């Protein structure tokens, strides 16, 4: 591998300082499961790697007055093993389980998955459907961001060169909300999503409310299907027809591509099927 600097820090503030000093070619690293691959393939200009994987303040999963807080450096395996996540946002565990394989899940972190920002990221749809926010620390201080604001383009987030995500928060109002995640890949493990999807809703008096649909791998970034959501909002949860319509509308909000993994036509079918599945199963969850 080509040479680079490796910086060990004791806290998040130091990490920010180190990134600011190394800008624009500094990168925070945790699991390295993507960045090291990029470096090995000579597709990254990173010259200084600032290790935030072991910082206590970026770890841990807890309930706060904001909601369910997951530290930036919490690994996918830790999410899968967490009783808190199981109780309050189990769809996040389903999503975490679809990432790579056990070795990459042990190393990879939730924030790492978000900042790598590939269209097929598996943590994105569920967090977006749950209206999660990220807390960000930089030289200028702290700020919060929605998922939509965070994801700018393929491999590009809104983070400045000296900013790191400190935590991810699922808001209190969406804890225990019926939410389902589905990923379709060419294999059950070690596979990128051809399409992934999350659906989240309540059913009140037989009507769907607070419908949220998020799709990945169908546009440059993970997206919300606002029109499909609006179509379902307030409608009867028993209406199969309206669900089919919503699936078609969701499709119209996407722009999947042909690539060596799948054709656009195949992805179009997956979009409709996974959207429906997520909504149907969320409805079923709401009735439990």
């Amino acid at each position, binding site marked *: *591998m080509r040479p680079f600097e490796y910086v060990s820090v004791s806290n998040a503030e130091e990490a920010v300082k180190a990134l600011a000093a190394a800008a624009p070619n500094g990168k925070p690293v945790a699991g390295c499961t993507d960045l090291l691959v990029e470096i090995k393939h000579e597709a990254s200009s990173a010259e200084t790697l600032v290790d935030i994987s072991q910082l206590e303040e970026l770890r841990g999963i807890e309930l706060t007055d904001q909601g369910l807080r997951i530290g930036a450096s919490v690994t996918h395996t830790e999410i899968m093993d967490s009783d808190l996540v199981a109780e309050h946002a189990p769809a996040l565990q389903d999503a975490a389980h679809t990432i790579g*394989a056990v070795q990459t899940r*042990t190393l990879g972190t939730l924030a790492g998955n978000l900042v790598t920002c590939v269209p097929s990221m598996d943590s994105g749809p569920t967090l977006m459907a749950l209206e999660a926010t990220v807390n960000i620390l930089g030289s200028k201080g702290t700020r919060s961001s929605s998922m939509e604001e965070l994801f700018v383009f393929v491999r590009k987030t809104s983070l400045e060169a000296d900013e790191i995500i400190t935590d991810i928060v699922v808001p209190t109002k969406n804890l225990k909300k019926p939410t389902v995640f589905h990923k379709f890949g060419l294999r059950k493990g070690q596979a990128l999503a051809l399409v992934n999807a999350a659906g989240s809703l309540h059913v009140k008096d037989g009507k769907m409310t607070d419908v949220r649909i998020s799709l990945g791998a169908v546009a440059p970034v993970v997206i919300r299907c606002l029109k499909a959501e609006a179509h379902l909002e307030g409608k009867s949860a028993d209406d199969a027809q309206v669900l089919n319509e919503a699936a078609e509308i969701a499709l119209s909000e996407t722009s999947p591509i042909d690539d060596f993994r799948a054709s656009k036509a195949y992805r179009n079918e997956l979009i409709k099927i996974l959207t429906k599945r997520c909504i149907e199963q969320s409805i079923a969850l709401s009735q439990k």
Partner: protein
Amino acid sequence: MEIKVTVNGAEKAASVPPETTLLSVLREQWGMTGSKSGCEVGDCGACTVLLDGKPVNACLVLAGQANGRDVLSIEGLGTPNNLDPLQKIFETHASLQCGFCGPGVIMSAKALLNKNPDPTRHDVRDALAGNLCRCTGYVKMIDAVMELAANNKSEAA
């Protein structure tokens, strides 16, 4: 940079450039060639070791990240006269052919049984999903792990 890592119970030191991976340190600095390089990008699992007891791709762990931590590699699992039960059952089940994927598979299986001593067949497949094998088709590895788990269970009972 200077690093100190506890490897298979013993503290080891190395002086390596920052871009060195744990796999490279194990193989080239410390002569522990049991962990293999199959892809260098975390796809094949041939480099699987346990870092603080958890299975990781050593090719994706930087030397600096291993500093001060605990590593268990295949060399630390058993010796010719004192095989780890996994190593023994892989022998009797003929679970390995060319053997190149073997250390990685065994470490992943070890991590599984440490965490979940009574796995389902699905659990075993999930735990080994990050270890590619081109020779065997995996069935005898899975059989071996399931049988070992069953033996452990009946012994404990």
